[in-house]
């Protein structure tokens, strides 16, 4: 109980001093060992954990695609380290831009985006595995680029009363 009170007071005190991206808060979907993290939403973790950044690279390592940041809103030990329970998954293909590299935490890890759009990483210190929902924008572009010509051809064919496709 004592620790809970300490945490609550600190959260109330420190949240105002920490700037989070403007998005609706959402409780992280976590079970005992895994948290599922959506993009572009302020995540409230159901526990206090180690602050820092996970820098997610494109599958071909050509660029940073996402940054998963756990803020040090509970305990600030400098340079983005400490403890926190607020997180945010920034995505290069979303409306919230990636954080400036100069703001990256001294406590960072690098992960490579999964081909299925899910990036996972874990920290043995906390025992938690994070599953980051990081859909590959390249895949989306490819899908759209395929669907548009197909749609266009279907439309032309339908005008010719050939309705076999779509």
């Amino acid at each position: 109980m004592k620790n809970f009170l300490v945490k609550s007071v600190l959260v109330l005190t420190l949240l105002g001093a920490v700037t989070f991206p403007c998005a609706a808060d959402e409780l992280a979907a976590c079970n005992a060992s895994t948290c599922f993290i959506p993009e572009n939403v302020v995540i409230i973790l159901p526990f206090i954990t180690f602050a820092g950044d996970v820098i997610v690279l494109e599958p071909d390592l050509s660029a940073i695609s996402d940054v998963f940041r756990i803020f040090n809103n509970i305990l600030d030990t400098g340079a983005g380290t400490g403890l926190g329970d607020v997180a945010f998954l920034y995505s290069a293909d979303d409306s919230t831009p990636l954080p400036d590299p100069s703001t990256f935490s001294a406590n960072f890890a690098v992960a490579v985006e999964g081909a299925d759009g899910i990036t996972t990483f874990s920290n043995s210190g906390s025992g938690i595995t994070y599953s980051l929902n990081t859909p590959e924008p390249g895949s989306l572009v490819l899908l759209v680029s395929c669907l548009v010509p197909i749609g266009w051809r279907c439309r032309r064919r339908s005008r010719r009363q050939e309705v076999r496709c779509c």
Partner: protein
Amino acid sequence: MLLNPRKLRLVAGFAAVAIPGFAQVSMELANSARTKISLKPNRAVGLGPRLVSHSNSTGTGPGLAFFTADFLSLGSKELPINIVGTNPSLGANTTVVPTVLVPLKFIFPNPGHPVLDGTNVIEATANSPIFQVADYTTGGVDLGVTQFGDALQRGEFWNLPGFSTNYHVLLGTPAVAPTVTVTVPAGLGNAFPLLHGSFFGVLDPTFFNGVLATLLSSYTANELPIFMTDNVVLGVQGQLQNCCAIGFHSSTGGGPIATAQTWIYASFIQPGTIVGDPILDVQSLSHEVAEWLNDPFVGGPVIGGVNLVAPFVVPGTGGLCQINFETGDVLEAPPVVFTQVTNGTTYHLQDEAFLPYFLHSAPSFSVAGFYSLIGTFQTFSTLCGPG
């Protein structure tokens, strides 16, 4: 694996550090008066002039003699750190903390009622480098002829601006409290026979903390009681498979740290107890004294009491992380040991990490630019990865 229960390891939220309630125990106090034990002759202590900068620095004030200072951590973040003694950046000073050795004697419930009596290790403890002086040299720098804890503190701040070679933090010549005899109830402790005919005791930590809770009122906040056992360690329900915590340091919580009580428990480990003898005699006490010096209020408020630092990985533990300034934990898996000879006896001491290891100071302001007393660490800690 040897673990000390006062660690603040973070798994999911802050770990609670508290003294559990008192379990049933029978105790007898042989004598109410404290006695000074007879020590073998001291070698000359090469200490400088005794300069007192404030009333608390001699351990005669109402609370422990300590200072609080902001040290720069990552990103030039200032972290408040409480350390026993005076602020080394203010120059020469000698702090002497009154110390009491409290022998604990346990009568175990096993057949034949084996007894392990801490009284038997008091003289050896008092004659060890924890209290006696030896010469410490680190990285070619002579830290002086002094106690283990003082050598550590001097080495830690050796290159800090304002530090004086006449800076000292010493444990006073120990008083010895009357032996506390405890009959261990069945289910809360066991004595296991060793090959050489002696015993190794394991006590339930909740039961043990209950014993200590009844004893603490005998001591004032400005003095350090050290509860000594002879080959008796802690493990849940007194079971060997839950073993071992061989020492811890703690403090009272709930009030201001200025008047908080602090204490140490350590087991004197006899040769032949642990396979390979990785831990011997006062090694666990050296670990605890070093940590008590550098994080004395670990049982107090999380903010303002415990010395919180950037979360770091504890080497040798498979990735466990810790968030407070505990000098010994990062060098105990496996223990990094060195020896010193006092009064003709060789004692085992543990290497201890310096504050720059936890602050990520570069270069280190400690002796020879090291990050631990005997130089095991040549760089700072590894941060505990995000998540």
